[in-house]
């Protein structure tokens, strides 16, 4: 699903689901890095039990980062991955389980998407190289300067696919990493680590879901386990809701759109490749000391609290006076199901449902409207009630026509507005077409030097007239010149900047050529045209249309089942490039019965053959590779070297549909049967299916049990005694090449040391198994305790004695942090003395424009979600009396503010640990707004009458902070979410 789109929509609509992470940074002391002690309580004021890592979301940014130089080799990539995991571990501090899941072979339904991504990546790579080359030539011809072309090999991100050597190495390195941390990091000593590498089939997040599902279906599961899942996919939100675990949190990188990227040619920031001028590199900082650094802050993390999302959904979905009892849990499942219509990884989304156009709201509205007709829920435990779905679809179908028309209208008016805006901007830039000159030249008002009296006005007017005429003659001249030279003197025309000529030209280039849209969904006959252009069939071909609808219906069933019960069929996939219309869903009840059972996933190398373009064939053995390019190959049709991308109404190629042929599984297997004997022993091993592995350290209660298994060489699977491991169940099998305590582990990475004192043990782990046909229930578990509510209750009336205090972190009684007087003194002191350039000298901090995109202003959220950072958006500081500042504070804020400090030593420290500056002074700067919050909390009753004062002060402080941060080149102040002016 359009990941950014869904997440953006969700976080705008439900702002309170987001909580910023508090991260304690390791400090450096005398050049030695002091690691963070993760045994300490979590600074986020919440304790998580299990941390799940969807590793592919980590591997990609670590191997080919977008905002920093790429790692030079594989070893550096591995180290980057380790550091990333360390960072997450430090933020989340799981107390029971760390589950790392790397994508294994995916179900066939997903393969089509993977295939299209990999083919596109390959195509884009080629096109980028071409463009680079072309522009490079151009620039050099113009005499520009470019750094010499790097010879380094491009990292082919396609190797992040199960079955490649890279993934094998990664699995190996992660084993080493886990053994190392278990042996050396006290924060890990009681944690059970599960590693599910690429040799275990299934997508990472779904392996995690499978684990959770299978644990919670067994009686020893702790229903109040607090889960934390790391990953940026919007799917994770659905998956988390689908578990029906009350405590489920997602952690992801803060989504920042339009992050500046260096130009691919010259490596400088601030322009794209097509605007590259080839000018010499500018010095970064006075002595070029910032060369190589990218002016963006480090990615920050945010939590997405699903329990808060559930609160929001409860408000939205609860229906009164139903013909059947309302069950919130089931309505959540229906909501998840409806989100699939809007987009998922396995089906193209319905043409009429676009998330940006409020499709989910529309669906919810329809859902509530037709509930009396449907008489029940759409889904149960991941099984779809098609009859009811049809009613929803028909209701969407009725609106379809209008949706398309409205889309066109919106599109047009958007374009119009953009055009107007551009025009305005240009007019502002250009100034009026004609200006009087000389003594008639316009003069600014209010200046002291008055214009002199006009002298000899007629002569002046004559001059101006002649000037004008000269201008026209020049234009004519240049036109003639252009004609004569057959247009070679293009420079001549543009130089004589006759603004009229230029205007015409610029106006033309503004209206970028639109991709031709033959479907024209907004005009009558759209359905015929859609089927004709997209499927190449006449609308009269009912059978074909039914086929498409049937496949789509199967798809909806498959996807829901996949989320709630696990992969129903490894074979099924949606065999078309486009979706049908909602109005085509007629008589769908009979369209789906059951999936083929006992399907098997592909082997890793088989899947590689299924998803790779021929250009990535180097990851495969030669004879296999040959099948991708030889005219005699019996599967050559799977590997086009170029393909069409249908923009399908979108603007950019990456949004379009890649028209790739589908893979015929039978022919693929048949062709591979011939080349299987060519595999080397290593490749055979890489091609086999592996198992999850469990790791523990010596201090874990389960350790002795496992050690005993190795000593007795137990050959059969052994169940985990539930009481030894927080009620976690599963079957243990001895590993063939195990990590054993006191056996040194050699480091696979040259720059890291071997583990001589190993105290970790590893064993194969298998999730609890259930009988065929077992249905995992999508319900709350009986003993589950619901977390306390976060949203303001609807019945809350303002002014009934107490005002509502919004909760901003995990803890409703969060203690706020303050800076004491000496801190302010130190701050003021150093500001005055060392600031050579003055507080105003700089622009706002480099990333002040990168605010989180989920400010509440956009949608009428229930709770304001303000950053103090917003202040920096307000523009130039109106007044700034920095030297006064500490004094002012003393005079007015003698209570509360200061008093709180003594009791909050620890909280203060936490805030320091946010670590955006390192030193004590900067920590102080960050603490300031926090102090405000605490003040507010404690002085709540007096708040109203003091409001104005307070505002004043806050403004001052906001500016203060800003000036400080920017003047010194520090990163901006941390997001403090503690102000709530309401």
């Amino acid at each position, binding site marked *: 699903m359009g990941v950014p789109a869904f997440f953006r929509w969700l976080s705008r609509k439900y702002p309170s689901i987001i909580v910023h992470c508090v991260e304690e940074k390791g400090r450096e002391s005398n050049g030695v890095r002091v690691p963070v002690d993760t045994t300490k309580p979590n600074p986020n004021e919440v304790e998580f039990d299990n941390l799940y890592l969807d590793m592919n979301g980590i591997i990609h940014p670590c191997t080919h980062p977008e905002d920093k130089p790429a790692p030079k080799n594989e070893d550096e990539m591995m180290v980057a991955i380790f550091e990333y995991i360390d960072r997450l571990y430090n933020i989340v501090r799981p107390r029971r389980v760390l589950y790392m899941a790397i994508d294994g072979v995916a179900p066939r339904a997903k393969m089509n998407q993977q295939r299209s991504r990999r083919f596109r990546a390959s195509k884009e790579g080629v096109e980028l190289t071409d463009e680079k080359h072309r522009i490079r030539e151009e620039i050099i011809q113009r005499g520009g300067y470019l750094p010499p072309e790097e010879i380094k090999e491009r990292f082919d991100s396609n190797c992040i696919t199960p079955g490649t050597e890279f993934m094998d190495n990664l699995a190996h390195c992660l084993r080493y990493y886990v053994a190392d941390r278990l042996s050396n990091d006290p924060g890990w000593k009681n944690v059970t680590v599960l590693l599910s590498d690429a040799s275990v089939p299934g997508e990472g997040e779904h392996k995690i879901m499978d684990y959770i599902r299978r644990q919670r279906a067994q009686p020893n599961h702790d229903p109040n386990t607090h889960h934390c899942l790391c990953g940026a996919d919007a799917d994770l939100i659905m998956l988390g809701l689908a578990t029906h675990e009350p405590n489920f949190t997602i952690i992801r990188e803060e989504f920042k759109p339009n992050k500046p990227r260096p130009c691919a040619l010259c490596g400088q920031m601030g322009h794209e490749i097509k605007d590259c001028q080839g000018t010499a590199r500018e010095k970064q900082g006075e002595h070029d000391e910032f060369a190589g650094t990218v002016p963006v802050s480090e990615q920050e993390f945010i939590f997405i609290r699903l329990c808060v999302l559930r609160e929001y959904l409860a408000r939205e979905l609860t229906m009164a006076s139903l013909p059947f009892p309302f069950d919130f849990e089931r309505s959540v499942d229906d909501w998840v199901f409806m989100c699939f219509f809007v987009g998922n990884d396995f089906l193209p989304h319905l043409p009429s449902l676009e998330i940006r156009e409020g499709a989910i709201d529309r669906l919810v509205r329809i859902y509530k409207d037709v509930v009396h007709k449907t008489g029940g829920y759409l889904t149960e435990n991941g099984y779809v009630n098609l009859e009811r779905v049809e009613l929803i679809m028909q209701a969407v179908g009725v609106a379809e026509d209008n949706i398309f028309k409205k889309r066109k209208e919106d599109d047009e008016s958007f374009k119009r507005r953009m055009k107007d805006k551009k025009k305005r901007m240009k007019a502002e830039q250009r100034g009026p077409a004609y200006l009087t000159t000389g003594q008639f030249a316009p003069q600014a008002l209010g200046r002291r030097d008055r214009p002199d009296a006009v002298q000899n006005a007629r002569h002046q007017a004559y001059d101006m007239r002649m000037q004008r005429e000269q201008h026209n003659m020049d234009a004519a001249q240049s036109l003639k010149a252009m004609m004569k030279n057959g247009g070679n003197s293009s420079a001549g025309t543009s130089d004589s900047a006759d603004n009229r000529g230029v205007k015409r030209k610029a106006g033309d280039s503004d209206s970028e050529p639109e991709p031709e849209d033959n479907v024209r969904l907004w005009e009558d006959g759209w359905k015929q045209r859609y089927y004709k252009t997209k499927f190449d069939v006449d609308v009269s071909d009912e059978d*074909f249309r039914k086929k498409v609808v049937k496949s789509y219906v199967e798809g909806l069933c498959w996807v829901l089942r996949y989320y709630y019960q696990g992969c129903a069929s490894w074979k099924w996939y949606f065999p078309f490039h486009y979706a049908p219309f909602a109005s085509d869903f007629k008589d769908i009840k009979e369209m789906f019965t059951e999936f083929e059972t006992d399907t098997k996933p592909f082997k890793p190398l088989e899947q590689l053959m299924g998803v790779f373009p021929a250009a990535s064939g180097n990851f495969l053995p030669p004879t296999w590779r040959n099948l991708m390019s030889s005219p005699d190959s019996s599967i050559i049709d799977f590997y086009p070297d170029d*393909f069409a991308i249908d923009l399908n109404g979108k603007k950019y190629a990456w949004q379009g549909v890649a028209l790739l042929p589908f893979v015929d599984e039978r022919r693929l297997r048949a062709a591979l049967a011939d080349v299987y004997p060519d595999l080397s022993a290593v490749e055979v091993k890489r091609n086999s299916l592996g198992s999850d592995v469990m790791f523990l350290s010596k201090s874990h209660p389960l350790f002795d049990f496992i050690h005993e298994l190795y000593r007795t060489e137990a050959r059969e699977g052994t169940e985990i005694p539930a009481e030894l491991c927080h009620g976690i169940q599963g079957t243990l099998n001895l590993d063939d090449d195990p990590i054993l305590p006191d056996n040194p582990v050699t480091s696979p990475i040259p720059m890291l040391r071997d583990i001589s004192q190993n105290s970790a043990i590893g064993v194969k782990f298998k999730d609890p198994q259930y009988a065929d046909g077992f249905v995992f229930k999508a319900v709350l578990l009986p003993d589950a305790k619901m977390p306390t509510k976060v949203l303001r209750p609807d019945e809350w009336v303002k002014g009934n004695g107490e005002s509502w205090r919004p909760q901003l972190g995990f803890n409703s009684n969060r203690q706020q942090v303050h800076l004491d007087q000496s801190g302010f003194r130190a701050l003021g002191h150093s500001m005055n003395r060392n600031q050579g350039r003055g507080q105003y000298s700089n622009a706002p901090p480099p990333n002040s424009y990168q605010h989180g995109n989920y400010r509440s202003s956009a949608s009428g959220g229930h709770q304001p979600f303000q950053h103090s950072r917003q202040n920096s958006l307000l523009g130039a500081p109106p007044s700034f009396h920095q030297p006064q500042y500490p004094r002012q504070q003393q005079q007015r804020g003698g209570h509360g503010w200061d008093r709180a400090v003594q009791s909050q030593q620890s909280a203060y420290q936490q805030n320091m640990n946010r670590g955006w500056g390192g030193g004590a002074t900067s920590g102080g700067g960050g603490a300031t707004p926090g102090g405000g919050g605490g003040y507010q909390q404690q002085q709540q009753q007096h708040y109203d009458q003091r409001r104005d004062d307070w505002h004043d002060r806050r403004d001052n402080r906001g500016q203060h902070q800003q000036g400080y941060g920017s003047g010194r080149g520090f990163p901006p102040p941390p997001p403090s979410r503690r102000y709530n002016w309401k």
Partner: protein
Amino acid sequence: MSQTRDVTTQGITGHLANNTSHQRELGMAGESSGEDIVSEYLGQNPHLAPWIDSLRGYCETNKQWFARREFILRNMETFSTVEPGVPSSSLDKLISLSMVWANHVFLGCSYPQAVMDKIKEMSEGIVVQDAPVHRTTKDESMMKGKRSAKSEGDAESCVKRAKCGPNEIDSRPAGRTATWPMSQKAGPQPQAPAEYQPFFNRLYKTVAWKLVSAGGFGPNMDHFEILRSCVESCKQTLICVFVPLKDITGLPTGRTQKEGHVCEIRCQTVYMGTGYGRDESASRAMAAKEALKAFQGRKVTVKICKRRYKGRDVEDLILLDEQPRNQGFPPALSYPFQDMQQEDGSS
């Protein structure tokens, strides 16, 4: 059994081959596609029908499948080890190539050159009506110029459409052909562009001034008149070839009006434009408008380009502006460079 199969397979290819050659003799092709012949053939060999239908892909439309089925049946004999009903690797190869061809025609995929050459050969004679037009992004970015932005009239694009690689849609001139004043050559000489370039440079200037005096290029002018007077003031003449639309074969059946004419304009054997219109003068006006569009750029260039003529790729002299464009020329209606059996229709 296998013997009968051989006979029958040869039967169909012979059948198809006969049909095509027959059509060639008549100077028309594709009007009755291979579909009828295939179904006739399958009617005679009913035992093959279930087998061949088992090769159909689930998501294939009738149109795609009928075309691919024809491709498979036509090429069965070259894959001598293919035995209907028996899975084999050579059958898989044939299926694979049929998919390559279908993907190329219907999805717009392209494959390594060796593969493309092979399917081109194998697909000889198969007619697909109204194949979809797909562009790869590469073309897309090349097409950013004005030319692609304008939308052409339906009929006009019908003519332009007939460009899909090995898919045999071609138009044949069945009307009159003008007699050529120039000495007849077999294809344009390599130095021909350089020879003609000075003339077109002069013409470019003449046209530019003419357009300026007419108030700029616009839809409401008599394009042909402007072009004619400019060419004549450069002491040359325009040559227009007209072909009634009904004589052009291989056009999509659905949207074609059967009336109307297509006109092709050349000057000094250099191709300038093609247009469609209700009558001859309207088509000529349209062609002139097309031709004038080339003069909107900074210069015009004469180049040798490949284009379709009578179902073959031929080299032609073409007047281009400096806009990069994909090679989507409409098929030639005439070929002023004497070669081979060309003169058969007009003599």
